């Protein structure tokens, strides 16, 4: 039985040097000393240049039970790519989706938990709730950003904005090789909108309402 302890900086680097399939990939690491200090128990992740901004629209509500209702909400989002030389302003109470600059591949015996960096939290920028990243995930992580402060905050792509901690899970790393992915949902390269409408639960919830 493997313990579920959190990985330290040295151990994270060790896992990044292992061969496939047990290899942990976080790419690119632009400054290893900054992003994965030996004494830390997490990897700092940088802000990517792509954003999805929610617009105020004429849509009355989001009802995730109705998969079609998410379609117009998707249409009420604006997608932006500001480039690495650009910036975006997040206004008080504004919510936007961003993505990590890094592309990750999590081996089957690890799971990740994404949280904001406290330095940003103290000026009001929240990276939503702790986001679980499951074993076998491959792609860029979508970050849910909200400005809870009273002052607009300028976000610059490339800044370290979030961190991911890794925990062991009792699975065989070799099972990565037998895993089958669904092409539409793998290798995300930017922020992704909610797929809540695809949840299998809705059939049951709808049945209860008859």
């Amino acid at each position: 039985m493997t313990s579920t302890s959190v990985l330290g900086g040295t151990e994270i680097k060790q896992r990044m040097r292992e061969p496939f399939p047990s290899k942990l990939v976080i790419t690119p690491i632009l400054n290893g000393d900054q992003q994965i200090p030996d004494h830390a128990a997490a990897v700092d992740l940088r802000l990517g240049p792509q954003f999805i901004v929610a617009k105020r629209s004429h849509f009355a509500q989001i009802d995730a039970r109705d998969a079609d209702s998410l379609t117009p909400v998707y249409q009420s989002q604006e997608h932006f790519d500001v480039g690495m030389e650009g910036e975006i302003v997040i206004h008080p109470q504004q919510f936007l989706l961003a993505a990590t600059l890094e592309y990750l591949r999590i081996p089957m015996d690890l799971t990740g938990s994404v949280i904001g960096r406290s330095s940003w939290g103290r000026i009001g920028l929240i990276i939503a709730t702790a986001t679980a990243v499951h074993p076998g995930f491959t792609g860029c992580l979508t970050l849910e950003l909200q400005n809870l402060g009273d002052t607009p905050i300028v976000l610059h792509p490339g800044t370290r904005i979030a961190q991911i901690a890794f925990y062991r899970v009792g699975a065989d790393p070799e099972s990565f090789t037998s895993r089958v992915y669904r092409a539409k949902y793998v290798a995300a390269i930017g922020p992704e909108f909610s797929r809540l409408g695809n949840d299998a639960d809705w059939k049951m919830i709808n049945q209860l309402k008859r």
Partner: protein
Amino acid sequence: MSEPFNPFSEAYASHNLADQARSLSSTVLLAPAQESRRITALRHWLSQIAEALAEKCSQSPDTSQRKKYSILLFHVRGLASHINGANHIVPPGIEVVLKAFQEQLYPNSITLLNLHALGIGGRDGLCDITHLLSQCDIHIPQIQGTPEKVFIANCRLGEQDNILASPLNIMAFYLYIALDGIDTRSHNDTTGRWLPLSDAIAVRALGPAFLFSQYDQLEKPLKVEGLPLQVLEAEGWLDHPTMRPLLDLVPHSESEGQGTLDTPEWKAICERIPAYTPAQFDAEVPILWERLKQLLPPNELEIDGVESDKPASLVSILNAGWSFYLLHMEDLYKILGSKTAQDRYDAKMVLNRLLTKGVELSQITQTWRTARKAIGQ
């Protein structure tokens, strides 16, 4: 007493042209919320040109001058409409590749990508305007940040994320533009071989991937002229154990282009445009294949390290993409459980996404490393 209003007079024609220029001068400044600084600078420069043009037209009702002004206005309007048409708030995959390539050729330039129903192409959108400005005796100094060159790229709508195909074709035009000063066109005018020469330059710089990309655009295979294959042979690609069998599949005609590689023009081209060689392919591409097989973007060559020290080159990423598509797609189909034609299309789009991210991240890593050096880290 003033002249009676006559809309058919020479004077009115000049005033009309002046008003069109004034209108364009203000229209070109209507920018969207998000735009790069270089494009903003270009908008202001074009606006000032249109304003100066309006003044010239108002002052001179001369018919011959007006014709030149009219042509300049046409080109300014054309470039302004390309700027507006190329406003993709999320750049498609092809734009990511073209911008990375353009950064290598001319760092202070921009790419304007327009999606059309027809045709793939590329040209420099500034050269006609610069030429006409001197003819019209208009001197507007470029605003700080105005791009050195404006690459106008056309791609078929729907193909904008198929980075295996269209970017390589447009990159061939970029290379041709980069060769200004070498009179390749006069050579071609006499021999009628402009296209094979352009293809030969592209295949030299971009490797076999350029040749393969031609077939992704066609409904039926066409024969490749002999010249591009001669270039590949000269670089040793026809002796390459992996690529030779793939190149043998390309339908080609044997007789074209004999002797071209011995001309002084070709030697001048070779000095300007470095070749992508089998040695580079062997050093980089197998590592990038391994990354693709693991559903990773082919952005770096270091597979066992932590920090990204060795970003992959753009040309290697594109050659890795094409050779992976031709040799290793079965691996991807297996990982993705692809069975139907739709599944195989989805798998191809996964490959395109990984390649796009590979190009984007390798470019960012190179820029980051340069910036770190600049601040002494």
